[in-house]
């Protein structure tokens, strides 16, 4: 009777929903079903926080009519009794590519990169595709929909996951009975963006993260300019972008740093993105919180590494082990910090993994309410569709789940997933619970049968006395099939029975090992009890390691803070007129050098006995590529629009290594892939702080230029980009500067102008507000750039590398440009044939301000030794040699008023050396920035021990995980690439 009723319900609902009024009908007569369906006696989650015990949900025509404790049911109501069961709004996957085909990867671009766009009538960059609409590619995927419904989903929000601007998405229900007319809730559900280029397009710009960021900024400026009617050609991309402006904007960031990066772009243009995170946001939750963005979180908590082979285990960094340990806390940490987030299936292998992952997050402290919100109300809110999806409030779609109990509990069964009022059976609600302990007597032997597991997926164990017998159980539609081996080995008993509702025992047919048939009765001795639960409770509160800043093994548990310190009795290398002061005290207070003298009073400052030791200013590396996520934007021959400040990587081990070598400040330069590179980041190497904390306050503005073989692309296969000769390089500069001059003039005239970040940057150079640090090798090109600069009435600030600077040192002195050079590099390419280690000494002799730089993460940490090479090559005075890595680079970077020497009032960026700072035998013992000790030899020793112990502990935990049968993955080293000028 009941079954029949159910069947009718489905039938009626089906009819009522999907016969549109205005559609003609030729296969029968038009009819309507205006009956109500009521679900009674259920625990109803109207929203995750509005819960009705023993309530009734009344639906009609696919929508919720009423939900309450008591609902007066209209007469034409079909009632379904859900006593003891729960009803939840069905889940929403907000970040999906359901039903949208993945674009195909473009074939390689052969000999030379493709610099020009392929499209016409669109934006100049092929990776910007706001004109794409997922709806045009949408094709309902029944198979995938079934998987999703089985995991509890009723709605997915899909888009074309390709390109930097991806156009609009489509919000659809997983309604199997209906058609797209019913399913599509919104065919422009939002606009989607990312930092990743389209795989289907080959245009080489942007070739870097910072390039993608610059492209997005310029695109927004251009869209505005277009909207104001200033562009008289058709640009379908910008038009679409402007049309999509009012939609929700969803950004694919995929890691904690990129979440902040994306948000910054949004902030600059008054857009608040909802952002797809990466699962590592717990590591930097303060900055994440500040974005005010709603996050979309993948649940791809990493599997443990298989560390059973110790040789393999070595390759796994403590950072990755820590992330394995802590990743499941990500949702909890974000929730605790008030960050709103939605979950997504994105990056999960299968929707069926969802439950286990959410359970894990809950096990690691996430509240069930937040978990449910992340699957229902929050995604609905992000999409601006709270009235329709994510809850069971009146008027919302009747899309809901019926479960046997608490939806996130292990033993809970999902019975039905209703989508827009149509029922989808996941597991039969009418299944009898056959779980329990049974006795089965056969031929004088009593077999103990124990049935456990889920109601619809029961597990069995058969014992004869205490001996476990091989057995197999299947249970479907209340029919059970059980076979088990006898103690005589291969001979089996086979049983089959229909579990009847009104009987505790199991009665049915028996096939004996000899093949003859009989009947059996298995007597129920006791009911099933959730014994497993106890184990779960023991497992609770997983052991967690502490977050460190940064997460690397050498990260600190607490960020270093400024201390007041008195260095007593040091040999002080001032890098000032004062030269070297023996037996001198230096007092550091509030991050500044406050006093230099003899027998200073420490006051409350900590005393460091520096007897026999040397105290210097921190080393400054004028040319560094550490602490970056990208170096070159080589997609264009000028990339003045990109900023190294956008791609600072505060977790690069190079920072710690540099500190251990006494380096406190670096100029993070763009690479040398193009004549006009990107803007620099000048950083204090504050290990543990965020990128923004490392960037100098009021930082002087710099930009990288480059000359020679790299910009001509001489040493790799590329023949398509201008310039290919040094002659072309000159003309390129002239062209850009001329255009920047004209741009600036127009801007200053007050006339409307198209804002161009590249031209803005170049105009800053012309106006003396931004300084050039130019990668250079041979004398001809060095001379050329000075002449170009003079023509445009500005000065080149620094020639970096400048290996033939010695040949034009007089001209350099006259122009007023500094030289920042390698100590002794040469012979690695043709243009360094005449590079000589005497270069620094010769330039210095002609009055050029000379610095020694690294361009290399290894050399950077030994710049004191590199400076000492100028003593060997060219007989530099030791004091002058030392200045080449302290005050001279500070001068070149226009930060000599703050750092670079030991002088009262300057920043306390200091290094305490075990001996003479230029000696090969000396070590940095303490490296201090703004009065905080960021490297300490003794602390380093402790860190080593701590790393060993923590690794050991985590390896133990991972081994246990493997033994417990959990999935593991092959050890891998997630190592960053060492970068130089030429890194693409």
């Amino acid at each position, binding site marked *: 009777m009941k079954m029949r009723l159910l069947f009718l319900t489905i039938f009626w609902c089906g009819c009522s929903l999907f016969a549109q009024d205005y559609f003609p009908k030729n296969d029968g007569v038009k009819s309507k079903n205006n009956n109500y369906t009521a679900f009674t006696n259920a625990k109803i989650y109207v929203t995750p926080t509005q819960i009705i015990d023993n309530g009734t949900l009344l639906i009609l025509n696919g929508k919720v009519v009423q939900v309450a404790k008591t609902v007066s049911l209209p007469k034409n109501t079909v009632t379904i009794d859900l006593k003891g069961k729960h009803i939840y709004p069905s889940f929403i996957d907000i970040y999906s590519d359901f039903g949208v085909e993945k674009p195909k990867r473009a074939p390689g671009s052969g000999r030379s990169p493709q610099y020009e766009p392929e499209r016409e009538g669109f934006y100049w960059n092929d990776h910007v595709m706001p004109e794409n609409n997922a709806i045009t590619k949408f094709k309902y995927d029944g198979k995938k929909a079934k998987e999703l419904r089985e995991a509890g989903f009723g709605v997915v929000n899909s888009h074309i996951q390709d390109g930097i601007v991806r156009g609009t998405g489509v919000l659809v229900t997983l309604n199997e009975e209906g058609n797209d007319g019913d399913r599509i809730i919104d065919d422009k559900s939002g606009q989607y963006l990312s930092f990743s280029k389209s795989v289907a397009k080959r245009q080489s710009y942007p070739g870097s993260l910072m390039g993608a960021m610059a492209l997005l900024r310029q695109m927004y400026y251009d869209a505005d300019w277009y909207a104001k009617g200033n562009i008289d050609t058709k640009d379908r991309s910008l038009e679409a972008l402007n049309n999509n402006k009012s939609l929700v904007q969803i950004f694919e960031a995929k890691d904690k740093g990129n979440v902040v990066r994306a948000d910054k772009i949004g902030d600059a243009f008054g857009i608040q993105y909802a952002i797809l995170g990466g699962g590592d946001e717990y590591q930097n939750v303060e900055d994440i919180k500040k974005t005010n963005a709603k996050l979309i979180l993948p649940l791809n908590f990493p599997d443990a590494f298989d560390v059973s082979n110790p*040789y*393999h285990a*070595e*390759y796994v*960094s*403590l*950072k990755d082990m820590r992330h394995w340990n802590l990743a499941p806390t990500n949702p909890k940490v974000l929730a605790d910090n008030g960050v709103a987030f939605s979950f997504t299936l994105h990056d999960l292998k299968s929707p069926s993994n969802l439950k286990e992952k959410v359970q894990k997050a809950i096990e690691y402290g996430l509240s069930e309410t937040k978990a449910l919100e992340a699957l229902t109300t929050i995604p609905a809110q992000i999409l601006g569709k709270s009235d329709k999806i994510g809850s069971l409030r009146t008027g919302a779609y009747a899309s809901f789940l019926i479960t046997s109990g608490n939806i996130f509990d292990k033993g809970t069964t999902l019975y039905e997933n209703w989508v827009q009022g149509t029922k989808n059976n996941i597991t039969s609600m009418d299944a009898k619970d056959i779980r329990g302990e049974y006795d089965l007597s056969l031929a004088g032997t009593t077999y103990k049968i124990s049935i456990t597991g889920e109601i619809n997926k029961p597990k069995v164990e058969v014992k004869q006395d205490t001996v476990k017998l091989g057995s197999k159980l299947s249970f479907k539609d209340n029919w059970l099939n059980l076979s088990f081996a006898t103690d005589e080995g291969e001979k089996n008993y086979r049983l089959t029975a229909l579990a009847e509702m009104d009987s505790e025992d199991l009665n049915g047919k028996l096939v004996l090992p000899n093949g003859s048939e009989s009947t059996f009765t298995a007597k129920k001795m006791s009911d099933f009890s959730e014994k497993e639960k106890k184990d779960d409770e023991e497992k609770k509160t997983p052991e967690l390691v502490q977050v460190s800043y940064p997460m690397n*093994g*050498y990260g600190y548990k607490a960020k270093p803070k400024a201390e007041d310190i008195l260095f007593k009795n040091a040999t002080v290398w001032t890098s000032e007129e004062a030269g070297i002061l023996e037996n001198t005290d230096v007092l550091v207070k509030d991050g500044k050098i406050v006093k230099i003298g003899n027998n200073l009073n420490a006051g409350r400052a900590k005393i460091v006995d520096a007897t026999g030791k040397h105290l210097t200013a921190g080393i400054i590396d004028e040319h560094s590529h550490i602490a970056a996520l990208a170096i070159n934007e080589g997609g264009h021959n000028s990339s003045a629009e990109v900023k190294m400040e956008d791609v600072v990587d505060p977790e690069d*081990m*190079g920072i*710690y*290594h540099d500190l*251990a070598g006494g380096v406190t400040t670096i100029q993070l330069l763009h690479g040398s892939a193009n004549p006009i590179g990107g803007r620099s980041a000048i950083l204090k190497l504050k290990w543990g702080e965020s990128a923004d904390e490392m960037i100098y306050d009021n930082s002087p503005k710099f930009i990288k230029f480059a000359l020679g*073989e790299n910009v001509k692309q001489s040493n790799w296969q590329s023949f398509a980009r201008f310039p290919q000769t040094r002659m072309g390089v000159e003309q390129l500069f002239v062209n850009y500067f001329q255009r920047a001059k004209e741009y600036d003039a127009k801007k200053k005239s007050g006339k409307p102008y198209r804002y161009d970040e590249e031209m803005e940057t170049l105009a800053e150079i012309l106006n003396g507000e931004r300084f050039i640090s130019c990668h250079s090798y041979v004398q001809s090109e060095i001379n050329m750039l000075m002449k170009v600069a003079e023509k445009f009435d500005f000065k080149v600030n620094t020639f970096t590398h400048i290996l033939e600077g*010695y*040949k034009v*040192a*007089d001209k350099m002195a006259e122009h007023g440009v500094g030289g920042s050079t390698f100590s*002794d*590099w*040469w*012979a*690695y*390419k*043709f243009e*360094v*044939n005449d590079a*000589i*280690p*005497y270069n620094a*000494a*010769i330039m210095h*002799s002609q009055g050029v301000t000379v610095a020694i730089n690294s361009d290399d993460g*290894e*050399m950077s*940490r030994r710049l004191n*030794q590199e400076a*000492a090479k100028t*003593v*060997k*090559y*060219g*007989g530099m*005075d*030791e004091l002058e040699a030392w200045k080449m890595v302290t005050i001279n680079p500070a001068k070149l970077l226009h930060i000599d008023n703050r750092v670079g020497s030991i002088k009262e009032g300057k920043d306390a960026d200091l290094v305490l050396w075990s001996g003479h700072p230029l*000696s*090969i*035998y000396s*070590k940095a013992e303490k490296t201090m920035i703004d009065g905080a000790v960021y490297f300490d030899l003794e602390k*380093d020793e402790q860190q080593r021990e701590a790393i060993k112990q923590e*690794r050991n502990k985590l390896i133990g935990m991972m081994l246990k995980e493997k033994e417990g049968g959990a999935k593991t993955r*092959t050890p*891998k*080293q*997630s*190592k*960053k*690439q*060492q970068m130089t000028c030429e890194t693409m």
Partner: protein
Amino acid sequence: MKKATNLLIVLILLVVTGRAQQTPGPVQKEAISIDGATAHLGNGEVIENSLIMFENGKLTFVGSANNKIARKGKVIKGKGKHIYPGFIAMSSALGLVEVDAVRASDDQDEIGDFLPHIRSQIAYNAESKVVESMRPNGILLGQIAPNGGRISGSSSVMQFDAWNWEDATIKADDGIHLSWPSAFRRGRWWAGEPRGYQPNKDYQKQVDEVTSFIKNSLAYGKDTSSEKNQAYAAMQGLFDGSKKLYIYADSEKEIIDAVSNAKNNGVQTVVLVGGYHAHKVTDFLKQNKVAVVVRAPHNLPAFDDDDYDFPYKLPKLLADAGLLVALQTRGEIFQARNLPFYVGQVAGQGLDPEKALQMITSNAAQILGIDNSYGTLDVGKSATLFVSEGDALDMRGNQLTHAFIDGRDVSLETHQTELWKRYMGKYEGE
């Protein structure tokens, strides 16, 4: 500054006296005595206020200057200066490539996987400007080895002041260089894999290829009737002990696999090159009498959790464990001239500087099998040595005044010093 100018004048004078660059020093005609310098013998000993004398290219006296014996021939005042045996660069491509990025100048890497018959000796460019730049830093000898492939080829030991490769040769075909398969391989990032390392699934297969090649070489040597096989023939010295097998390996497993494999298949002497994790298997290496040529200390730690100074101190850890240790140079060939400073860096980790010095003198000579003539200052050995103004292991002291190879007074001028003088001359109005 004054110091610099003085030095400059001295050097300009040297040029004016017409010392042609690149011209190898003539055979020693006159005896030379160096009186009063601190002599670092290269065997761990130091003689303060020493007297060193040599004649016909051989050392005739090594002892205290307090000895009241006649100073023979030309006397060099050594007071305040330091004398060292010529430093030895191990496993270097010096002379095989001139400019890294210019393919036409690059002869380091032949195509093919098993190339023991490929010989560096005959491609060695005795007139390389890069080789010449070694001398002013005290590096006077080197083991020149090809790169690439599984067995890259055969190295030869050369001295750095010669008219041609024949003149330069100290020991031809001294060793065969084998890059052991990596148990872990780098991610192929260009194909979308993450960077960093992952287990090399083909490791065992690659090891088997090496084993098979060595076994076949051994078998080939036992039958003289078969047709000539250049590659197998070149391997024979490994089995009779006349050549050494230099195996490049870093991880514990690779090291153990490599050494065991070679030894089990008849290779007499194995030298480990690289050996990043050699400190974890020192007992094993000692048992197998394996010397280690450690990669340049001026490298970054390979693993993020490693001690920041691990590459600095690895040679010390191995020396402390009683292994015979030498040093390899870093990446680009020009870096070989920083070899003395690598030693200084190691000494800076607490190793006795004289012991550290052995890594580029006596230890290197012993590994190369040229210790009967080179590597230490001993009577009867070759007068291959130099005089430095100060501590040659420190940049501030490494200032050569004289260098001798087999008693020949060799030029300390280079393409680079010439340019220095030319342009200083320009600025100073000459």
